[in-house]
């Protein structure tokens, strides 16, 4: 009996290990594939030069800068709006049907396909608000996409702040806003940042929302104003893969671009993790 139980236990361990190995193997395979295809394209010139000869040569500096600009606009909009929406939902809203449906709506928003956000951005930012196809329209559209993720992450972060902290603050004569600003938000900040940075990864990699709203097929220079169109890494990949004029020449550029995008997202995630760790240490310290 007991040996049978032990065998079952052993089998479970082996099975879990295999599943884990499968997952890691898939990831390693994808990464190896991309590196083998794109590594040769990577160089200092590739990162710092603009595309030339109908995008069959030169670098990808314009889409790199464009993606950075898009992320900046998207986060500049969605981070404050998302965090304060979460503050409202957690700290101010009463727990009634209205709040609950609001919460459900935000959550469903996270599941809406990104092309729908693209169409929304087109009709709202581009046409209705007359921003035109531009960095601003595309950035705001991406911001809408990130919003539910940031709201969700901030909500759980705020809920995780112990009741004790709030009590202590109120008992010292703090107002609700003082308590939120000086105690609750700082305590929740490391987790909020993590959520925000994960959403940056998503924002940087999206293509569908920016095709109609401001991503350029080709732009000869960096965007100087928020009303200029921009090139973006994921869209550049799509173009090279589907509308290239010279497949042989563009293929390495295409995989090189994919690698750059991948490293960008990886870098963001790593920054987020390290930043959170640093904040945690400053708050808690090692005993």
């Amino acid at each position, binding site marked *: 009996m007991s040996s049978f139980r032990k065998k079952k236990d052993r089998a479970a361990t082996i099975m879990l290990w295999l599943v884990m190995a499968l997952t890691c193997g898939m990831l390693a395979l994808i990464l190896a594939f991309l590196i083998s295809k794109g590594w040769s394209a990577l160089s200092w010139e590739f990162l710092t030069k603009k595309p030339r000869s109908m995008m069959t040569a030169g670098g990808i500096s314009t889409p790199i800068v464009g993606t950075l600009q898009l992320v900046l606009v998207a986060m500049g909009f969605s981070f404050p709006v998302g965090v304060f929406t979460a503050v409202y939902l957690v700290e101010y809203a009463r727990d009634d049907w209205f709040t609950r449906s609001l919460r459900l709506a935000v959550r469903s928003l996270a599941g809406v396909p990104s092309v729908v956000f693209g169409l929304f951005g087109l009709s709202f930012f581009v046409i209705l608000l007359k921003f035109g196809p531009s960095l601003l329209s595309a950035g705001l559209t991406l911001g809408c996409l990130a919003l539910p993720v940031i709201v969700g992450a901030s909500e759980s972060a705020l809920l995780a702040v112990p009741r004790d*902290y709030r009590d202590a603050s109120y*008992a*010292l*004569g703090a107002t609700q806003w003082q308590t939120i600003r000086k*105690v609750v938000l*700082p*305590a929740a900040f490391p987790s909020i940042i993590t959520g925000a940075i994960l959403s940056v990864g998503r924002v940087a990699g999206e293509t569908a929302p920016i095709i109609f709203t401001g991503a350029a097929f080709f732009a000869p220079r960096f965007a100087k104003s928020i009303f200029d169109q921009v090139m973006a890494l994921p869209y550049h990949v799509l173009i090279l893969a589907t509308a290239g004029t010279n497949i042989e020449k563009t293929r390495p550029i295409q995989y090189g671009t994919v690698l750059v995008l991948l490293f960008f997202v990886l870098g963001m995630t790593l920054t987020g993790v390290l930043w959170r760790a640093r904040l945690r240490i400053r708050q808690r*310290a090692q005993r």
Partner: protein
Amino acid sequence: MEKDKFSVRDLDLFYGSNHALKKINLQVPERSVTALIGPSGCGKSSFLRCLNRMNDFIPGCSVTGRVELDGSDIYDAGTDLIHLRRRVGMVFQRPNPFPMSIFDNVAYGPRLHGDRDRNTLRDIVEESLRVSALWNEVRDILHSPALALSGGQQQRLCIARAVAVQPEVLLMDEPTSALDPMATARIEELVRELRTRYTVVIVTHNMQQAARISDTTDFFLSGEMVESGPTQQMFTSPRDKRTEDYITGRFG
């Protein structure tokens, strides 16, 4: 002799339909230690939280009756809660320092109320930490995280934090129940010293503790205040049978 800091008249407290405190009448003498004792769920903590209106945050909680602080009812519609809580500080059951430095914890209250000057703040922090008998242990680590301190040190930090806004009353809700005996002894010693400056109201589970540190004791049972009197008398010759049963350990 001494005057009453708090005077509570016909206080009823409901959590929804649950009648948690029934017709409480009692006085809290100024600059002394008043202990609230009684078994779990008797309403002593709820009563304590009436004195600085921390029950206001609990949904469905309603209070009737009068709670007078220096003669004016704190349940009056015009009461400034910020001012009230500045006058009536609180120390909680579990040490709850903020996740910030020791200095910032103590300076938190003064900063809320508008103290910005570095030198003033430094003086307040030192003075408060001296009052709570923590200064000598933390004087060189004021800017390290408060959560790195031991439990007992954290609780004394919370006392310093409460003291820093110069309250008149300190409410303590079982402040030693999460601490070891050594840390408990230090807090008890501290409470004895605090009574020269503050009115202290302390909820405790521990009858020996009440006997050791308080001047007045109020015994609560099932939402009622059964008996109130000088601690000496309560523990030697209680008037009520139920008080006697409780302090001799027959229940609770």
